């Protein structure tokens, strides 16, 4: 310990502030604040209680989807099926409650399991059959979309939405407000609580558990992970299954939000979810990413959509602007990495 020769010293470890991970979160968070300030100045309707609650609500479903996708992207994978799997889960929940008459908690469980099963199948196809994630989940995206149409067609003889008319309480899961009961001036819908609850669970999984550790390890260097004696195929399958579980949760949420399962809905949601993850600083090449980042990314997207709508920007242009933001966010991230 006394001789300097015998020590392998660390490389210069001075991190510029711009480069550190904390800075990345600050960057995304800063962007969110800037967007908020901009819209507040641009429109008097933006920074009102109702509107902010509206933004929170609008983030809920996409946010939960993005949480699941974060795990997948950290392994250097991708999941294109989350949107339609969400729809399928909404459909199985709706059918099991309104058609089979299952109690609501069991119906919710059916939805969650649907998502998880779809994810697990993705995982097996990717990890065991060695199909690239892009292709495997593209396939699952189509399969889930098809099933979400097939199920009502088989039951009702035609493709139509399934409504929760006899179960008004089901809608309350999302739109009711526990917070509002305690603090009547703050009627934050439960959907937002569910989002934050799910985010907490996800953050715990990623940072504190073996599952999270191996997720990062696989994304950082899959071969090294395998050589360390870790069963990469099993853990990867689990990652996709967990991603699917979050899609299942999103399915239950959207069914509750709309008090119905809409069979045609869902395509395109995966892109918003992936965008949120990427804006939040998760690297598509794997190995790094945070739940907080994803959460901020999801809020950036819904805040933009909301603000632009208030300013009267047509929807077509909203897409364009969101697209530019996604590219900018990733470019900033690349600059940050290069700064080392």
């Amino acid at each position, binding site marked *: *310990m006394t001789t300097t020769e015998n020590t392998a*010293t660390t490389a210069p*470890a001075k991190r510029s502030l711009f480069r550190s991970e904390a800075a990345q979160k600050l960057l995304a968070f800063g962007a969110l604040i800037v967007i908020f300030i901009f819209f507040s100045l641009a429109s008097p309707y933006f920074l009102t209680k109702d509107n902010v609650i509206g933004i929170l609500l609008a983030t809920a479903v996409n946010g939960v989807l993005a949480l699941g996708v974060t795990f997948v992207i950290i392994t250097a994978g991708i999941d294109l099926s989350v949107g339609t799997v969400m729809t399928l889960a909404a459909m199985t929940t709706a059918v099991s409650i309104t058609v089979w008459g299952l109690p609501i908690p069991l119906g919710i469980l059916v939805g969650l399991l649907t998502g998880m099963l779809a994810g697990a199948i993705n995982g097996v196809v990717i990890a065991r059959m060695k199909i690239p994630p892009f292709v495997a989940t593209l396939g699952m995206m189509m399969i889930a979309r098809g099933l979400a149409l097939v199920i009502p067609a088989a039951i009702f003889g035609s493709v139509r939405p399934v409504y929760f008319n006899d179960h008004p309480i089901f809608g309350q899961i999302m739109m009711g407000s526990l917070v509002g009961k305690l603090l009547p001036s703050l009627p934050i819908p439960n959907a937002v609580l569910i989002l934050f609850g799910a985010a907490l669970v996800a953050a715990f999984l990623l940072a504190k558990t073996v599952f999270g550790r191996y997720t990062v*390890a696989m994304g*950082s260097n899959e071969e090294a992970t*395998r*050589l*360390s004696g870790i069963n990469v195929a099993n853990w990867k399958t689990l990652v996709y299954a967990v991603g699917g579980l979050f899609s299942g949760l999103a399915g239950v949420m959207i069914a509750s939000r709309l008090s119905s399962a809409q069979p045609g809905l869902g395509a395109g949601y995966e892109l918003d979810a992936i965008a949120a993850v990427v804006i939040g600083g998760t690297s598509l090449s794997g*190995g790094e990413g945070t739940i907080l980042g994803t959460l901020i990314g999801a809020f950036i997207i819904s805040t933009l959509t909301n603000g632009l709508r208030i300013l009267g920007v047509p929807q077509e242009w909203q897409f364009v602007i969101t697209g530019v933001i996604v590219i900018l966010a990733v470019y900033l991230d690349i600059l940050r990495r290069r700064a080392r």
Partner: protein
Amino acid sequence: MSDILLVMEEIDKSFPGVRALDQARFELRAGEVHALIGENGAGKSTLMKILAGVYSKDGGRIIYQGKEVEIPSPRAAQDLGISMIHQELNLMPHLTLAQNVFVGREPRQGLRFVLDEKQLNAQTQALFESMRLRLNPRTKVADLTVATQQMVEIAKALSFNSQVLIMDEPTAALTEAEIEELFRIIRELRDKGVGIVYISHRLEELKQISDRITVMRDGRYVGTEDAATIPIERIISMMVGRTIYESAPEVPEEASATIVLEARHLNRGHVIKDVSFQLKKGEILGFAGLMGAGRTEVARAVFGADPLDSGEIYVHGKKANIKHPRDAVRHGIGYLSEDRKRYGLALGMDVEANIVLASFQKFLGKLGVVNKGKTHETGEHYVEALSIKTPSLQQRVKNLSGGNQQKVVIGKWLTADTDVLIFDEPTRGIDVGAKSEIYHLLNQLAQQGKSIIMISSELPEILRMSHRIVVMCEGRITGELSAAEATQERIMTYATQRRVLMAENGASEHSGAQEV
């Protein structure tokens, strides 16, 4: 001493187009260091990967502690008490040192799936201390030098407390001091009864550290000898299957006076400090120094791979504005990276594509279509000239043995026809036969009027090859020697000429790393 721990017999293994192992044999006793040597592509790594559960064997038996065993996965090998340090670095750059060392065996708390990070860091700290490594378990691997990463790999392998420890070229990236420390650890383990397999191309090391030596050639077992009694020449002839081997140092030519490349007052952070040097036409300029002296950093800066804070580079007397490797290549400068996996090769592409990669324009026909015939010819030429061991030009480079990958990189820059070639540790991980070919090649290139900068940590190599030697220490040039005046001692004196002030700086930087 003589209880046999492990026997591998009649092991066969084929890869598409390659018979990597053909009735290979290996025996290991408890409490011995057993060196496994052979030319590049002889099958050393493959044989040991079978033992470590990475590859499955096509045929043969493994008898471990008296019983025949199957080793289907790395986990199975770990459970048997067999661990391996791989030739390629196998760490996860985004994780911390502690997270890397104990990946797969993390201490848990309360619920079975919750990590105990505190315990993890404490265990790693204790492990590092037992190895006299001053490293912070919380540092990320991406922030370490290659040499330090190698020490971490070694720490990881040690933490298994295995009965069998396989080291595949562990010293390739280490400094003398680190090698000393490694040898101390190896001897300690040997005395505890651990069987150690030691793969290395540094033949001088073998006599120092090993008890027995097994030689392989072309996937076959050649023989096993006592390390103490066998002469080096005999080992070499067993390896290459022929006795002819010239090792007489080649006398450096007098280089002409034209200055091809000149660097003036280069500075970059605290890794390059006021570095100036000149490179003449037809000269081999050796860059000596300890690992981390800043030689690679200078090379990368000259090549435009890293930005400079200040300083100027002149090529053929004209100021060159090199901001990007592209600019360097345009000015006729080529760089052979020390970390060929990361910077030197497109691993997924085949041998031919890699060889012509840096000089594609040369192979374009009238319509901008690649002239396949010409690339093929060039590929063939270099495979032969450098004796690259590959079943075909269409083999993917990642399937070549480590040493043959290095030769492909050399072929690539030779094709690019550059005037100035910077070789960064060109013979790391290369067997004796190939080494002397590469030396021969460097001399030939110099005679043809190319100018060469050779960075090497092996003093005999520097002494043998260089016309002039520049020695670096801690980012500065601390001395310059002509071939005539250079000796190992003189180089080492310059290489360790630390500034007292610098040493203190170094210490405070280190504590800086602790708080990350």
